[in-house]
């Protein structure tokens, strides 16, 4: 890999190809989650790779290369949709309804179905959910990245989960009755966050 990276620094086309091919699936998976559709995702991926190729000399070899790439691609994707990110005003998360306890039932859902569900979210919900739940960003980091408050980040994450839960429920109508219940009052979502398993950062 080091040889490929140094080849990319020299702008060697075949090294660039090898790097692209190596991280194609990884990068495209990120882009698809943030993008409206797969075609858009490929464009975002290439924008991201262009940044990678143009800035590869800035990569610090002490740090994992994959997460460096992931971060650039994620940032590219966010920048791409930044204009579409319309965040609702901050709401007190504690007043929000909690929905769903049957998600586990759908664990067998295929990649494409999950992707379709995520792409169906509004850009703001999708971005926050991606960053928090999948890419492992904290609310503080999300707030800084998206120039929003941590509260807005939390409420958007919450609403995103809610939407996803609803959609999951619609997929299997028979379970619809089970997925809706009033959340206990006074639950602090931050505690929920703290209970999250180790983040993949």
């Amino acid at each position, binding site marked *: 890999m080091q040889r490929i990276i140094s080849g990319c620094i020299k702008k060697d086309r075949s090294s660039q190809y090898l790097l692209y091919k190596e991280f194609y699936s*990884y990068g495209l998976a990120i882009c698809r989650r943030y993008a409206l559709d797969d075609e858009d995702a490929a464009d975002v991926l290439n924008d991201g790779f262009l940044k990678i190729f143009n800035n590869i000399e800035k990569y610090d070899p002490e740090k994992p290369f994959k997460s460096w790439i992931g971060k650039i691609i994620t940032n590219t994707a966010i920048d791409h949709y930044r204009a579409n990110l319309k965040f609702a005003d901050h709401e007190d998360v504690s007043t929000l309804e909690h929905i769903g306890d049957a998600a586990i039932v759908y664990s067998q859902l295929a990649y494409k179905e999950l992707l379709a569900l995520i792409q169906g979210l509004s850009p703001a919900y999708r971005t926050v959910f991606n960053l928090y739940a999948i890419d492992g960003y904290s609310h503080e980091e999300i707030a800084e990245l998206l120039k929003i408050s941590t509260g807005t980040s939390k409420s958007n994450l919450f609403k995103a989960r809610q939407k996803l839960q609803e959609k999951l429920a619609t997929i299997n109508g028979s379970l619809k009755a089970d997925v809706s219940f009033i959340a206990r009052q006074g*639950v602090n979502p931050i505690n929920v966050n703290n209970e999250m398993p180790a983040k993949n950062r």
Partner: protein
Amino acid sequence: MENENDIDQLFKNGLSDPEIPFNELDWEKMERKLDGTENKKRLIPMWLYTATGIAAVLTVVLFWLLSTPVEINKKGGEELSSVEPVKPGIKKAELENNTADLKMNRAEHQINSADTHIHQETGQQFYSQVQIAGNISGRTTAVGLMTEQAPPVLPLLSAITANDGINSGINLMRPEVNLQVSSTLAHSSKEVADVSTAAERDRIALEKKANALAQSKDPFEKITPTEIARSVQKNMETALSPRNTLILSAMAAPDITTAKPSKSSKVSSNLGMLATYALSPKFSVTSGAIYAKKYYNSAGTAPQDNPYAAAQDWEVDADCNVLDIPLNVNYKLLNKKRLSVSVNTGLSSYFMLKEKYEFITGAAGAGQQVSTLEVQNQNKHLFGIANISLSFDHRINESFSVGLQPFAKLPLTGIGNGNVDLKSVGVSFSLNIGLFPAKKTGKYAVVKYSSLK
């Protein structure tokens, strides 16, 4: 809040590390993106490069076009300096002055010999052109008529000397000596026995008109001797140079196109229409459009850093439809009665209309993989190919000729999607039709002119 964790986990597990099959087309787009940024950086040098090439071609052409008149002017100037300047303000009464007469006679002799020679070469055409030129028309009429029957006075006099004669003759005709010159000319022309009365009347009328124009106080009407000299010189040059001729050619050419390292090569084909415009007897420019179907391949062991098959056996078969727009300059080395030989050089632009590639990797048998790539209208290489060829033309008749042209096309840049070093070597066969052929007089004059040299 297990359910929230569950949703996050469900998506995290389901979405974070999928196996998305690699799509070569996305890399193609990526490459274009990379090329785009590189091209932007390279834009100025590329422009300079192209501009330099065009400037070089123009310089050669202009140098050739301008070199002849420069020489004439120089020589003309030398000749003129040997003629004593005529005193200004000579009165009409001094018409018979011996010194002036001598000078006029000298000038007249020069005009005479020059006219005779030119007339012999370019015939009636030049005669009429000089007549238009004004001041000396009266004299020329007489000389022209006279020399039609007379043998050439100085048959071996070079055309340049002839020009000198004319130049000094004209330069003598400053406004202040105008009347004298005309009178002297008129006087000598009367001595020509067989001048027709019509010609005489024309001569007198033109003479009067020329004098009136030269001495006119109206700045718009006044014609200065330098203008006349320029006009005559221009007409001289036009008369002595060949008519510009346009030649249309239909060509067909098989060629062998190769990209290193090459295994075997199929024969590629070219079909096109070209137009050649003659700038001079020796120089011409050619352009047109050639549709080429190029087959080539690259095979062997791929280099270590090859993205498709690092250090493996591989083969790339390419089938490309290319529009080739050449811009060549031709120089005639030999021009015999029927055969002419030219060396041609220039640049071609390739427009890759369709590129089809087949990548074969791995050893023959079960392990062999074949992948294809097809792109359309994605690559163009402006002036990216150097042309060099030698052409042999056999004239069938006045208008038609057939040509045989061994050629080579050498890339100055990487060609096509793979940026390959694509060379073509072949032989072109052409049928050429000359349009707007040179007028006979001009043509013969040129032939004679070149034989005199």
